[in-house]
């Protein structure tokens, strides 16, 4: 494994920003560094070779982004979170709106969106909810759209589903084909997938619930603060925001515009414009 110093990491993030408009300048340094080193390792690049490639081959940026971002995800990750969704949060939204909108920000390969679709299906309200799933990484979005996963990932997904205490068996929702789990297309028919960058992107809609779990951990505090403002603006008053179980917003400027609805599962509610 090679090493890379901060000055070179800054050169790389500056170059990507200037040339391609992706802004990683405020990402958490430790994981950004590991990701860049990983790419150098995979492609057998020195720092200089990597910088040259990024400068001279614009098509390389997609592959670079795909490797740089951390796409690791699971269906029904933290089953207790999903139980609270089903038993408290969604019912609370339904009291006020028969139809509503959910945004999965940083949806990665789509496991979280599919989990939500299954949950809504089991609650019998799938057709009343519009889901938006966004990510900055276009390669991973394509995978999310396909709703197809390697069978070897299904063991963990099934275990999570059982802990979530779903109505049936996860197998009810997919069929096996050549080592792949192919989920029913119909589950995703109310999902709009689109490319969106949380750092540089515009506000594009208003939501009743936003899930942004295990995405902001890759940002430094300055950037977390800015992105929280965007979420605030993208939520209807009394809308909910869910972040990862080990994330915290308490020190953010906009924290006082939210109340904690469930501290264990990190679910917040916007109470002030």
């Amino acid at each position, binding site marked *: 494994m090679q090493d890379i110093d901060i000055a070179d990491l800054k050169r790389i993030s500056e170059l990507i920003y200037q040339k391609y408009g992706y802004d990683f300048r405020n990402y958490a340094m430790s*994981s950004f560094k590991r990701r860049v080193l990983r790419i150098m390792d995979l492609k057998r690049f020195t720092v200089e070779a990597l910088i040259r490639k990024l400068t001279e081959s614009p098509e390389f940026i997609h592959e670079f982004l795909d490797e740089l971002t951390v796409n690791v995800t699971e269906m029904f990750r933290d*089953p207790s979170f999903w139980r609270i969704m089903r038993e408290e949060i969604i019912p609370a939204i339904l009291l006020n709106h028969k139809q509503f909108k959910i945004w999965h920000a940083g949806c990665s390969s789509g496991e979280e969106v599919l989990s939500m679709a299954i949950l809504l299906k089991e609650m019998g309200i799938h057709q009343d909810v519009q889901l938006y799933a966004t990510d900055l990484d276009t390669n991973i979005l394509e995978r999310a759209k396909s709703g197809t996963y390697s069978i070897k990932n299904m063991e963990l997904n099934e275990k999570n589903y059982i802990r979530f205490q779903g109505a049936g068996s996860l197998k009810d929702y997919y069929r096996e084909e050549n080592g792949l789990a192919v989920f029913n297309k119909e589950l995703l028919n109310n999902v709009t997938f689109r490319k969106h960058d949380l750092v540089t992107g515009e506000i594009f809609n208003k939501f009743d619930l936003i899930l942004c779990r295990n995405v902001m*951990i890759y940002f430094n505090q300055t950037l977390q603060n800015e992105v929280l403002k965007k979420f605030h603006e993208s939520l209807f008053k009394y809308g909910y925001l869910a972040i990862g179980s080990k994330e915290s917003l308490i020190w953010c400027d906009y924290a006082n515009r939210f109340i904690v609805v469930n501290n264990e599962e990190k679910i917040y509610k916007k109470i002030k414009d």
Partner: protein
Amino acid sequence: MNKFNLNNSYKAVVIGGSAGSFQGVVKILSQLPKGFPLPIIMCLHRLKHVRHGFVEALSLKSVVQVTEPYDKETIKRGSVYLAPANYHLSVELGHYFALSTEEMINNSRPAIDITLGTCAYVFKDKLIGILLSGANKDGALGMKQIKDRGGFTIVQEPSECMIDTMPKSALAITQIDQVLKIDQIVNFFKELDKLYR
């Protein structure tokens, strides 16, 4: 000078452990000198899906309450931290934690190499690294990084380990300052503590 040739310039202690390390960690924490000044950062292999119970079990006899840090939480004097389930735990240059869900390393998340390696990068020669019993080689590379940056390294005496793969892997790739039994590690903390009084 004391018997470990230490001084009071250290800023943090980092501990890695896996299979068979639980009892040892409990013993160390339960006999920690009251008011021990350095933060102790622990990365112990654990079940990925069990979020609760571990930190409570460790705290039961510990002199200091053990906590699982939040993302971007600042590292504080005298606190004891444990890497949360299913997240890698890194330390950043401003002395705060960062969590990540990157791929498993050595089949582990949290991976000891990540916690040890980032601690080594941030605390350099002001770090003490301790690697306990365990069944894989996670942590060996991290111990090497600590040594390479001038930190102080300790592994648990392999003969005392329930499974000695972990300390042996570290011994194989880097020079380790001390090979100690748990009781001696307990004493080590007491000696170290005196230097800060």
